[in-house]
């Protein structure tokens, strides 16, 4: 085992860090407060090749490796977690499954504009009564000649407010449970596709999270991704990759909060000296930096495993479980180091603290990660 970023990866990190500082950071607080979706950020990220980082050039992507993708998401999350998840969803949850399971025609027609950042994607799996138990979804897809007709509703859909394309999971046979689930790539301007209201949340407030409602939504059969009944498999495989993206987001949030706390601890003086001179604060900083490094390595390991192993569910779940809980602890300590100031909107750390919370929930809760890990280790 040897982990050393290549010249290209170091250059990428520098480029994305500069982009994040110049384009993303200045508006991070504002869009958190207003909930305004950062579509302009996504467009500019697309121009840099960040919308389809690991998608091959021929399909509009940047053709980079998985660790590079983690670097991109981490660097964006380091300044704005909302923007990071917008990017992560487009890359991991829409481009990835189209690349892995889409037909050649679907890749040309849908993957290319998504990977190039000309179109924005969302992933529509979760429903009001089907969260962790995704196989319980109730949205239906009825075959009608050369089309399918979709009916149902989806909730908590990141990018839902602005997506041009949605990867929708619906059942062709509710009785068959997960074996009836089928995936479709759907243009959001089709008749019968309706977006719900902006969801007000604790954190990642600018991620365009909405409900989606499908009423007699007619989709050509050519837009079915994979075969009928393959949808659950596609969703689970996709979430493995999504977990790597969310792990990178959690690492970025933690890193950003850590850097703010480090700077604050040097500047803040109490009892006649910088609070960084107190052992209590030093120990917090030491633990934070250690856990961030561990989380980053686990994340990169999962990204590496995705490219080098047949199955990487275990690595992805371990990275997601560890990094999301780590981000929780690190942002909490970062806020604590800021004291009363940290509790105000004058500092960024309260935003990091709120944004970290979702990483333990979406793309599979910590509890679901433990189920995945235990079943990989113990057998189901």
């Amino acid at each position, binding site marked *: *085992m*040897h*982990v*050393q*970023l*290549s010249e*290209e*990866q170091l250059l990428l990190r520098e480029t994305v860090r500069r982009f994040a500082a110049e384009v993303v950071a200045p508006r991070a607080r504002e869009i958190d407060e207003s909930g305004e979706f950062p579509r302009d950020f996504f467009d500019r990220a697309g121009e840099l090749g960040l919308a389809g980082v690991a998608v091959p050039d021929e399909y509009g992507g940047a053709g980079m*490796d998985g*660790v*590079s993708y983690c670097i991109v998401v981490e660097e964006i999350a380091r300044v704005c977690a909302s923007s990071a998840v917008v990017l992560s969803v487009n890359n991991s949850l829409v481009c990835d499954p189209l690349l892995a399971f889409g037909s050649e025609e679907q890749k040309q027609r849908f993957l290319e504009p998504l990977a190039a950042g000309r179109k924005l994607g969302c992933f529509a799996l979760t429903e009001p009564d089907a969260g962790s138990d995704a196989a319980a979804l109730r949205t239906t897809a009825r075959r009608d000649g050369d089309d399918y007709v979709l009916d149902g509703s989806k909730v908590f859909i990141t990018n839902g407010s602005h997506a041009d394309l949605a990867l929708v999971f619906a059942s062709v046979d509710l009785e068959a449970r997960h074996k009836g689930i089928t995936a479709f790539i759907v243009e959001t301007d089709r008749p019968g596709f309706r977006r719900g209201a902006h969801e007000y949340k604790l954190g990642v407030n600018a991620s365009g999270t909405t409900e989606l409602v499908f009423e007699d939504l007619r989709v050509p059969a050519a837009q079915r991704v994979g075969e009928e009944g393959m949808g659950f498999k596609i969703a689970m495989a996709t979430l493995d990759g999504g977990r790597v993206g969310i792990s990178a987001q959690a690492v970025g949030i933690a890193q950003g909060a850590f850097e703010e706390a*480090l700077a604050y*601890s*040097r500047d803040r003086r109490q009892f006649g000296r910088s609070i*960084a001179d107190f*052992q209590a604060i*030093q*120990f917090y*900083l*030491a*633990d934070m*930096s*250690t*856990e961030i*490094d*561990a*989380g980053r*390595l*686990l994340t*990169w*390991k999962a990204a*590496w*495993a995705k490219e*080098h192993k047949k199955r990487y569910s275990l*690595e992805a779940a*371990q990275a997601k*479980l*560890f990094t999301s809980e780590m981000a929780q602890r690190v942002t909490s300590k970062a806020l604590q180091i800021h004291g009363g100031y940290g509790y105000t909107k004058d500092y960024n750390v309260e935003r990091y603290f709120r944004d970290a919370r979702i990483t333990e929930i979406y793309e599979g809760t910590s*509890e679901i*990660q*433990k*189920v995945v*890990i*235990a*079943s990989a*280790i*113990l057998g189901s």
Partner: protein
Amino acid sequence: MPTSSFALTAEQELLRSEVRRFAEERIRPGVDERERTHEFPADILREMGEMGLLGMLVGERYGGAGFDTVSYVVAVEEIARVCPSVAVTMSVSNSVCAWPIYCFGSDELRERFLPPLAAGVHLGGFGLTEPGSGSDAAAMRTTARRDGDHWLLNGEKAWITNAGFAATYVVMAKTDPAAGSRGVTAFVVAADSPGLAVGEPETKMGLKASRTAPLLLTDCRIPAGNLLGQVGEGFKIALATLDHSRLGIAAQAVGIHQRATELAISYARQRVQFGVPIARHQAVQFQIAQMATELEAARVLTRHAAGHEGEHHGGRLASQAKLYASEAANRACYTALQIHGGNGFSDDSEISRLYRDVRVTTIYEGTSEMQRLVIARHVLRG
């Protein structure tokens, strides 16, 4: 092209499987008996020497095996998985005796002391800690005074692993007691030097088949050429040595953590309560998932730190690995014993031995508190 890999190389993988086989076949039998009787596993160590496991980082020129540091932590992990006592004996001989002599010794010292250490004919020890100076190593009271062609060492070193079995010690002493840490000098001391005595062995909570005893230095006479580095460089050498040896202890903790996880899994599969193996209960599944995740985190931190030893951030990485791996291994042994219930509390259970053995990993080679100070110093310095 990316250069990173999370896999071991073919050579490292081969070493890992050979060491695992050796540990299972040669170390596992009698491990409980040796812990009970405090018997030092001298025969096993001789065989390990023949395999190149006691001079792993020493170059071939001096009889060593010339392994990279990642290979070293992989080997320590595999030994610790079966017997943490043998692992610490191995780690001390490699990391805090052979390694500083190899890195800081004159050609003459290397030629004289390294070949027998590397071959396992001799074991090594390290004399830094004293009764009154643990974390505050610069407060040591042992002195070294020049006497013609010799140095005379006086003082008491405490908690010396391998004391009595080691033939060679690296010992720190004050050549200028008024100069604080700048007055510390390092020496290579042969065990048969006049004036060196080994005190009564300590009885410990764990690692009972490793030997720990004080070194008593009374006008201990060593040749002037046994100076390691320059006069006044001892503290720097001690800190560099500890940066390095923390990797060995991190690896020891990872090995214990690995075994605790294996024991928890196999017990949970066979123990039936409420009509099903307890591995079917979500509470137990989640405990195992947590242990396994933290094990992976500890392992990647340890191997990553080993791969970047000696680099700008090497010291921070080593302290992070030692801090995290030792704390995580303690949690894992606690949880694994909990999964074993009353059976884990029995002296007959392997997990109860690991539970005792693991405790010291957050203490020696720098307590967790000292690791945090080291890490904080690095991050605040930037």
